[in-house]
């Protein structure tokens, strides 16, 4: 392959990205070494004080991280399994195929900032339809105001909103699978379950891994859902890292500290995702 061509393809995108990002990222690093806040704006230099603080004096950040891991793993897992199932079901012949396919795409097209307000009205404990339904059984679950249920509500909303993402990727993947392996399996006498386990699933492995990784990245940034539905409450029981970073940054205006939190978060996420990706490869390609 000609030496020149590969750079011709890669560089425009790469350089544009790098060019625009280099200042913000550099600034963020510099910011994390300062104590920029509402009262002292400006880049003074305090060394690694922000980092020391977050490692030794900020249990709330690490709790938020734990909660985030817990919630994003669950949501992504649910989104993957449901998304895959749905994609598989509308892949081949089914009545109203086009209708279902388009319908299943719609939730992710809603603007989170607005849709979460709608969800808040849906789950409103006194005035919403969900509890209206439950009141028929005499219970009033506290969807947004109990420690356990608030997490569940956030997960429900996230699953509703982002399963279409998995659904679309996996459907596209299924549609571009070659026919040969399936024909071969049929000839071998394999039924639908064996076909799925031994042909479909392994062939879909690369795209599954890609989908899961990107979904994990996006799920970790979950902000609007938590902010609108529960404000991280009750107490701190539904606070996630991105919510905490947001509060520290744009509400309390501790930008310097928020930058340190973000960079730490970034590094931890990169490391975790690399590990997870490798694990998934082993898990899925094994078959």
């Amino acid at each position: 392959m000609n030496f020149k061509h590969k750079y011709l393809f890669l560089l425009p995108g790469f350089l544009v990205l790098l060019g625009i990002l280099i200042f913000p990222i550099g600034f963020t690093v510099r910011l994390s070494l300062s104590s920029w806040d509402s009262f002292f704006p400006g880049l003074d230099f305090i060394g690694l004080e922000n980092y020391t603080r977050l490692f030794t004096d900020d249990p709330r950040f690490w709790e938020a991280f734990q909660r985030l891991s817990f919630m994003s793993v669950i949501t992504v897992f649910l989104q993957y399994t449901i998304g895959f199932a749905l994609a598989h079901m509308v892949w081949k012949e089914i009545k109203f195929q086009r209708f279902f396919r388009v319908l299943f795409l719609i939730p992710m097209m809603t603007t989170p900032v607005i849709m979460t307000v709608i969800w808040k009205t849906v789950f409103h404990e006194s005035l919403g339809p969900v509890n209206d339904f439950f009141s028929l059984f005499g219970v009033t679950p506290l969807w947004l105001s109990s420690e356990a249920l608030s997490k569940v509500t956030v997960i429900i909303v996230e699953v509703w909103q982002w399963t279409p993402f998995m659904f679309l990727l996996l459907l596209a993947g299924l549609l571009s699978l070659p026919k040969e392996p399936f024909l071969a399996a049929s000839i071998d006498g394999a039924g639908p379950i064996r076909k799925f386990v031994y042909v479909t699933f392994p062939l879909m492995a690369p795209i599954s891994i890609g989908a899961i990784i990107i979904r994990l990245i996006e799920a970790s940034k979950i902000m609007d859902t938590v902010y609108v539905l529960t404000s991280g409450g009750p107490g701190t029981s539904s606070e996630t890292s991105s919510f905490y970073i947001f509060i520290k940054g744009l509400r309390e205006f501790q930008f310097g500290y928020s930058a340190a939190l973000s960079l730490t978060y970034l590094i931890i996420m990169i490391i975790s995702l690399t590990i997870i990706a490798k694990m998934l490869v082993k898990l899925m390609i094994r078959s």
Partner: protein
Amino acid sequence: MKKMIKISTLTVTASLLAVAAQADKWSDQFPHIKNTGDIAGECSYESMSKKDYSGQKLTINTHAVPVIGEPTALHAEQFSKLTGAEVNVIHTPAGDLYSKAMVPFQAGQAPYDIVFGFSNFIRDWKQYLQPVPAKYVNMRQMQDVTQSHIDVNSWDGEMIQFPIDGDRHYLKYRKDVIDNPEYQAKYKAETGNELRVPQTWKEYGEMATFFNGWDWDNDGELEYGSAEVMKKDDLMFAAFFSRSVAYAKNPRVPGGYFFDLESMEPLINGPGFVEALTDWVEATKYVPPGGINFGLGDEINSFGGGQTLFSFSWDDAFVAAMQDDSPIKNKVGAAPLPGSDRVWNRSSGAWENEFNQAPYIVWGWTAAVAKASKNQDVAFDYLCFFANDANHQADIAIGRFGVNPFKKSDFVPELYVERQGWDPEIAKQYAETLMEMEEGSTNRVFPLRVPGVFQFNSAIATGTSKALAGQLSPQEALDEVAAEWKKIVKRIGADTVREAYAIGVALEDNL
């Protein structure tokens, strides 16, 4: 003193109402002020029409529509017509007002000539604001503003923010229950106590509990005790402070309420506050389902929609209840916040068993002009016009505008009876309650207005909401808050915080 105020208020009002009889050319052109016509003054419609600002542009960042957002846009339109200036208004949700203004300020830009916000932003953003010129401060229109509102918008004697709205916390209750002889008898029979406007928070809790969870207004829906702002967002800490003032603000102990002024030690985990938080945890039992997650909007929906017996934060819930199409119009009453039977004395380290009550002079909507604005005259004229007598009178009659009384001439019951169809007794009670808090109290707490105020408030919100959720006991929660406050003070610098806090303390201690 009170009598003087009453007389001068009546005089002003009489003249205002007399003016109302005149239809003038301005109210024809601008139907908004049809009730009063234009009222003479340096910033009246007449005066503004003489100014020519054509070719000049104003950019304003204000709250979402309609609360404060709609009047801003409306007055912008009127101002534009009168003076020829081009006025652009953008609307921002409440929680983002601060960041929307501060990010540009801190990045060295000033895209807005006028910024709207909450008056407790003052310490953080005053470095970017232009103080109000003396000519506006000395206008009759401004002199009519109550002292506490002038104080809340000033820093160390200098007016930094332009008063355009008034806010306070007060108790709101359902008259059709409290004044109902049947319920009074029932309550007396079952508890042995009088059913009346609660004088203390303990009474508040008892009554709320009694009326929690059954249909006492026969509308087919369950009602509950109290709607309060408990959601861990920007406003819950104010609800907490309102509940704690009676227990922790001792008129005999000067030198600080949130901190000890000398040492800058947080006082937030003292017994007075803990008592208030304990009450508040109790309250989670008499709020509607989901009440622990109520933001201000939910509280307004709840009390204003007839769901609860009590509410006690900003005006909005009362105003919503008194709208023409509200099912509980003229069924609600206003009263000062409950007090307490004992107050903590931190000097002697003991409870004093005396009745104590004090208003929490809560912050509210305000507006200010950016220092870097190139159109300061236009900007100040706009704000003056916004708050001119004619506009102000018209604004306070429109509930959804969110503009509430803050001028001495506002506290006249007849205005509400005539213009908004309020029951005369309710209007009288409302005016008296507000007047008492503004002008009559000698023991009060000013909002915390120190650098980094959001950090302190955020710490309170986190701590108290943990207590409400049952994750920590009230003492543990407040200890956590105090520890966090200590850290914040250390980070910002004790002297810096003390210097700012001293200003608020001076206002509290020199009444």
